[in-house]
């Protein structure tokens, strides 16, 4: 029974893996891999399948050497070792992390016939660590402080500015993911989790936190992760992940085989808090039915939905539409384009349409 001291999936599950799009980025040092949502059954992403995004490769960080410095507009600047950090009161929270470029390849048209490649830059885990507010209270926040710069120990020393209020609200400095130490891909030994906000602000390999009176306007929040509008202006500091949902079965990777009764399955999420309702259409958005939401429905976490569907073998256009607890309704791609044009790259949270053909095959399409 100890032939597998660290277990692994059955050999026949070998195709359930992260995948990348080779033509998307210049090299693999600064790239992305996508979670295989078509094979995931719950709201928790297994650690080996959590999507990856690197801005300058994946460093190997020695936990005994790793230190976190907190300084700037604070009363008591501190250096904390990993041993120090795990002594603080611990909390566990389930939250998704989504890259704002998820779906970014589909702004102009349907391009990739895949659930994994069009939606796989989202994953969800139980994170364990210390509340960032606990650490900031420990160093003492000077009253002039309004912004917090967080910085990683990767090759890019990736850094972002965050408003102090968000840091005190729900941010976590975590060392564990789904009950075990963070994976190197996720920032081992220490990362930030900023619930409900675009993934790149959840700095991995967290090495430094600095408090200040203004934002830093780092490269990642000026030349990248800003949204170019049709009039030539850009939006910056667009951190929030708006509500989004997607049908994960059927999908291009998991077609139908013969007419009969199926369960349409999917995932919904929102950076605003909890999912309130998910509607499903089988006729391209003309008529809708509310799906069943499955417990637990957690704030800023993936939520599962299902709807029984008897497929008669006719062509169908499947869509899901989430409404979150603020009343925000997931838009169509046409509604998003009307506001933002086609060059904004990030924050495409539009309704996904899957075309089901009479042979059961499924294709990524966009509707007029």
């Amino acid at each position, binding site marked *: 029974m100890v032939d597998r001291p660290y277990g692994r999936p059955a050999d026949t599950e*070998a*195709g359930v*893996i992260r*995948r990348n799009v080779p033509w998307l980025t*210049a090299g693999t040092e600064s790239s992305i891999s996508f979670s295989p949502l078509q094979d995931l059954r719950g709201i928790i992403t297994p650690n080996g399948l959590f999507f990856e995004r690197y801005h*300058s490769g994946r460093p190997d960080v020695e936990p005994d050497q790793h230190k976190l*410095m907190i300084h700037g507009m604070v009363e*008591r600047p501190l*250096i*904390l070792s990993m041993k*120090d950090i795990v002594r603080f009161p611990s909390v566990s929270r389930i939250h998704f992390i989504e890259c704002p470029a998820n779906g970014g390849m589909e702004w102009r048209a*349907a*391009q*990739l*016939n*895949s659930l*994994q490649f069009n939606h796989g830059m989202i994953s969800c885990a139980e994170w364990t660590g210390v509340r960032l507010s606990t650490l900031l*209270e*420990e*160093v003492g*926040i000077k009253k002039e402080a309004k912004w917090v710069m967080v*910085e990683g120990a990767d*090759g*890019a*020393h990736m850094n972002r500015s965050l408003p102090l209020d968000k840091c005190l609200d729900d941010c976590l400095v975590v060392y564990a993911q789904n009950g075990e130490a963070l994976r190197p891909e996720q920032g081992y030994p220490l990362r930030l989790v900023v619930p409900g906000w675009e993934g790149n602000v959840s700095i991995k390999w967290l090495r*430094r936190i600095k408090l200040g009176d203004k*934002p*830093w*306007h*780092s*490269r990642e929040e*000026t*030349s990248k992760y800003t949204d170019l509008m*049709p*009039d030539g*202006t*850009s*939006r*910056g*500091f667009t951190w929030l992940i708006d509500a989004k949902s997607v049908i994960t079965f059927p999908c*291009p990777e998991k*077609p139908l085989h013969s007419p009969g009764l199926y369960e349409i399955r999917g995932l919904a999420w929102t950076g605003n808090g909890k999912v309130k*309702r998910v509607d499903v259409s089988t*006729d*391209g*958005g*003309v*008529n809708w039915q509310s799906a069943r939401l499955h417990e637990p429905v957690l704030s800023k976490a993936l939520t599962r939905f299902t709807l029984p569907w008897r497929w008669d073998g006719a062509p169908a256009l499947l869509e899901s539409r989430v409404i979150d607890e603020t009343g*925000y*309704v997931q838009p169509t791609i046409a*509604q*998003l384009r009307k*506001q933002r044009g086609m060059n904004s790259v990030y*924050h495409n949270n539009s309704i996904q349409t899957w*075309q089901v053909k009479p042979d059961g095959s499924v294709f*990524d*399409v*966009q*509707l*007029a």
Partner: protein
Amino acid sequence: MSSWRKRILLVCAAMVAAGSIALAAEPGYYGYGERATPEQIAGWDIDARGEDGVGLPPGRGGVIRGADVYAEQCAACHGTFGEGEGRFPKLVGGAGTLRDDRPELTVGSYWPFAPTLWDYINRAMPMPAPHTLSADDVYALTAYILNLNDIVPNEFVADRESLPKVKMPNRDNFQWIDPRPDTMAKPCMNGCADPARIASTAEGKKLTPRTTGPLDTMQVK
């Protein structure tokens, strides 16, 4: 008084301090870790702020020196004149293209703040060996890349005084307050839209990567 009782009192005190941030404990309550000394902070503190350049270190560098450093350290990926090799980022050009169908976002056409360029080169470049350039060389590279974009003259010398004064062409075109939600969809349930018309499909585009495993079996028929 036990430390837990003391802590509860502190929490109560914080809760009645209306209008201020509720602090659960006073600074140093846990007492973990070591106080960071000014020397330690100086060794870690690498950032320079984009808008006002606060954090830029002493040192200086001009366009001519920058051209030499660029040829040695940067040109292999970013191209001899900043045009970008392969899919590596283009640093130069794109002026006036931000409203075009295919805009070119470069340092010259897009970046709002010059000190951000110093900060990013210093923290992240060159990608295979970040943090190996001297402050002077980073200033020189910054001057050279701004000069390639016709933003500063040939005689420009970059330092902590001059960089924050450089007005980047796209400086005033950013909105730093998120205007979302910007769509106001209504959750209609029946007869909501005209019968759907497919505007685009991924079918037949051959852009989906071929991969090992089950995905191969779902390739376009």
